[in-house]
């Protein structure tokens, strides 16, 4: 029976923990940026004129949202390798995370786009703006500003979910934790330390999103009120 918790032992592995945290952070930020781009593109297709494109995006979103991320990761890493498309663990992790978060982003941004009143579109059309100009200058900016909090939550969840990539040996924080606890046998302490690390990373990500939001949405920064 072990009542004494020894945090010192796992903490001596702090360089490994830092490296793992950096990998987690790098994975999350890369997947966020790429996933955001994919999601916005899909949301535009979903709300656009082509019925085929809208339906294709719909199928993609439902497929992703109704299957586990772990299975998606295995398909990308093991499944594709068996049909000739080989990725390294880190690349496979990013690919799977981007495909996953792209679907959730598409849904969130779609809701944002649909929240822009038709009258805004009419006013922009009557100013002789092209369809693309209306989308880029009148629809997307307020749409994304409005769903920014939802997007922030989604990407923090993504960072927590990146722990799953440890299952294909990506050297992120959870994988490092597994190694440390098998070395030290201090499993509770190790995982508690790592849980705290994830909490800290969540805070950093939220701060980052707040900062990006302030820069991208001057109205929000100046007025402080929601759109």
């Amino acid at each position: 029976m072990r009542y004494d918790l020894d945090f010192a032992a796992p903490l001596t592995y702090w360089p490994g923990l830092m490296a793992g945290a950096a990998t987690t952070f790098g994975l999350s930020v890369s997947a966020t940026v790429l996933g955001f781009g994919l999601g916005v593109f899909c949301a535009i297709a979903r709300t656009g004129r082509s019925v085929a494109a809208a339906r294709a995006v719909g199928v993609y979103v439902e497929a992703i949202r109704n299957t586990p991320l772990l299975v998606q990761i295995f398909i990308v890493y093991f499944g594709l390798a068996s049909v000739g498309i080989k990725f390294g663990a880190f690349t496979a992790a990013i690919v799977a995370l981007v495909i996953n978060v792209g679907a959730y982003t598409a849904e969130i941004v779609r809701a944002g786009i649909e929240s822009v009143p038709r009258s805004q579109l009419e006013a922009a059309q009557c100013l002789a703006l092209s369809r693309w100009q209306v989308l880029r200058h009148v629809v997307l900016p307020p749409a994304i500003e409005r769903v920014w909090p939802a997007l922030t939550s989604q990407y923090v969840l993504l960072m927590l979910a990146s722990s799953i990539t440890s299952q294909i040996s990506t050297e992120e924080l959870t994988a490092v934790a597994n190694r440390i606890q098998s070395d030290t046998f201090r499993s509770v302490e190790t995982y508690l330390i790592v849980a705290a690390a994830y909490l800290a990373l969540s805070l950093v990500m939220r701060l980052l999103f707040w900062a990006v939001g302030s820069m991208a949405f001057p109205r929000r920064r100046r007025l402080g009120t929601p759109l």
Partner: protein
Amino acid sequence: MISLTPEQLLFLLRGFGWTIALSLLAFAGGGALGFVLALARVYAARPVRTVVMLYIKLIQGTPLLILLFLTYFGLPALGLVVEPLPAAALGLSVYVSAYLGEIWRGCLEAVPRTQEEAAACLALNWRQRLIHVILPQAMKIATPPTVGFMVQIVKNTSLASAIGFVEMVRAGQMINNATFRPFIVFVLIAGLYFALCYPLSVWSRRLEGKFDVAHR
């Protein structure tokens, strides 16, 4: 079928059965605890409310995989011998309790204050108000998001494979080690998850639509 023997398919389907079983266990355990947490968040004294809020924020801010590892490796440290299934069920229940607790708290608070007041004015005591007036309405509000969250529970059972529990993904990994056909195996598994989750998603969305209409 597609290059999987009948035995392997049966093995996979057994894993599928365990996926469903684990989901139900997590829902039951997490639901029970979540219900208590939700009530505490709304009706308990301030210190209790704060503790519950911290618990929820902590659990929601921890990756589920870490929670499962903590449960699986942590409990033996307390001298208990744990099998993968109870560890997975416990870890998932804790995870589910935090999310359902939050969802259900929101639903309790969504019942209009006036209902509470009307019931009090009819001289119903706290327990009677809760059971006969607040809860029935809160449950109606809670149905769409709860059904929606059940989809998350089913998907999250896949992580139990990491602590060795033979649900569907673990079964798939074992079959893959024998057949080396990961594409077919995991796409098939994805299909089975989809068959389970998609109807739940559709039902949840339909409930949401019905609920809006009822409240118009």
